[in-house]
């Protein structure tokens, strides 16, 4: 699948400086990553391998120690570029605002006029199945619904690049599958490029066009797998043989890395060598 490069990380490393007598932490890289416009790319890897750091660097939330970051051909330096939206694992809905005001938050910040805000918020609430809860407060909603509020808050800003940092990590397996379907629908209808950070191999397999498997810290890409799924897809693919094959291959790559991350003694990179 060839396509225009939408965002790019070139030779990026991230080293967190020494704090309170602790040595510096080399969290990421060096890595290279090219996101194609309109694709759904997932990053999987063991805990603490630098997946979220990678997303933060791409979003402009965290500066790279070395290397360059670009979005739509322009360098990302210190600020979040226009057209980039993110949803995080933690519940980031604002409890003092109603669902409707939460969703409208970014639009009001941008000074969008009232009628346009109302239109976009109504669409996003309808799209995320939250229309009946517009005047509810987040505390009155389930965890999954609160995460949908956060997705809707990002969606209304019509980002061209959507970054998702384990957005369904706190949800149960069935809700995650349903949210995955909704995410695919959102991706298809908006045409945005999506980068998903996840520890769930099945989730990455089901949702992605391409999956980057990352090594234990400092995270580097071991391999990128093309799933070959059609654009019009949903969780029914879980029944297929290919799904199991891809998920199995990912696990084969990541098994030794995950053991290394947990301190079980395998050398990082070993699985890569075995698979290769």
């Amino acid at each position, binding site marked *: 699948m060839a396509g225009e490069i939408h965002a790019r990380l070139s030779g990026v490393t991230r080293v967190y400086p020494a704090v309170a007598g602790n040595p510096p932490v080399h969290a990421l890289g060096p890595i290279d990553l090219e996101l194609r416009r309109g694709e759904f790319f997932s990053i999987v890897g063991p805990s603490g391998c630098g997946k979220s750091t990678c997303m933060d660097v791409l979003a402009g*939330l965290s500066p790279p120690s070395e290397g360059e970051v670009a979005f739509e051909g322009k360098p990302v330096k210190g600020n979040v570029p226009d057209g980039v939206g*993110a949803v995080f694992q933690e*519940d*980031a809905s*604002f*409890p003092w*605002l109603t669902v409707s005001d939460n969703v409208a938050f970014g639009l009001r910040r941008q000074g969008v006029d009232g009628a346009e805000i109302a239109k976009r918020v109504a669409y996003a609430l309808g799209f995320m199945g939250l229309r009946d809860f517009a005047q509810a407060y987040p505390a009155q909603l389930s965890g999954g619904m609160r995460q949908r509020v956060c997705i809707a808050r990002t969606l209304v800003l019509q980002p061209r690049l959507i970054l998702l940092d384990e957005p369904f990590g706190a949800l149960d397996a069935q809700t995650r599958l349903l949210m995955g379907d909704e995410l695919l629908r959102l991706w298809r209808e908006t045409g945005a490029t999506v980068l998903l950070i996840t520890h769930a191999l099945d989730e990455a397999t089901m949702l992605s066009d391409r999956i980057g498997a990352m090594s234990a810290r400092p995270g580097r890409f071991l391999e990128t797998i093309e799933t070959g799924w059609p654009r019009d897809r949903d969780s029914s693919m879980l029944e297929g043989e290919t799904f199991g094959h891809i998920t199995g291959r990912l696990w084969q790559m990541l098994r030794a890395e995950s053991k290394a991350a947990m301190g079980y003694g395998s050398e990082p990179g070993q699985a890569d060598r075995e698979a290769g």
Partner: protein
Amino acid sequence: MTRLAWIRLAIVFAAFAVLEWLVQSGRISTHTMIPPTAMVTELWALLASGELTGDLVQTLSNVAIACLLSVTVGFATGAGVHAVPRLRRALDPFLTTYYAVPFFVFYPLLVFIFGMNNLPMIAIGFMFAVVAMIINTLNGLDKIPRVYAKVARMHQMGRLATALRVQIPAAMPNLFTGLKLSVAYSFIGVIAAEFILAPGGLGYAISFAYDNFDNETMYALMLFILVLVTAINMTLHSIEQRLLRRQGL
């Protein structure tokens, strides 16, 4: 009114009824206490005559100034200390032991410094209230989920916009608790200081009535302060509860 509120009201009325019976039946001497109905009658007369207006205005003004100062200074100090973790760690022991200090021992010194006017009373009210606001500001800012800072940055918000639109609303339940305590502590500080030495005010009026064996006035004023402070605190408490409920706390 909720059922719980009716029960609370019934408890208050029952306590008054028991007190009324104890005094009216002679089980408590009228030299010691007057019946609650007499307190109400006397208070009404005092309010109607305008005799109380000067003291009331003086006390409420002093409380309002002490409270306003403690809330603004307490919030600014709390926010400033929160931004400098090393300073926070250094100040923590002082903040936690602050209320072990009996401030009233400083009152003669304050009178000496400021003179016999309202300033020593405002200073005592302020000293009593400000640390409650500092502690609650720190608690509120501590509780803000770290992810909100990321959300603010994703919305390209600067420091001021983040503070006004995200941090202060997120910390509001604790800030409001600080405000509620500041109001209560300002009342305690100011009225207690008026008791010791003051040119006027409700505390002074009670003390004056006590020294002159004027039980009617003394009890009427005590009732008045009780009702006033309870009404203010109940109002603030109900707003606080609404804020906490809304945020699922």
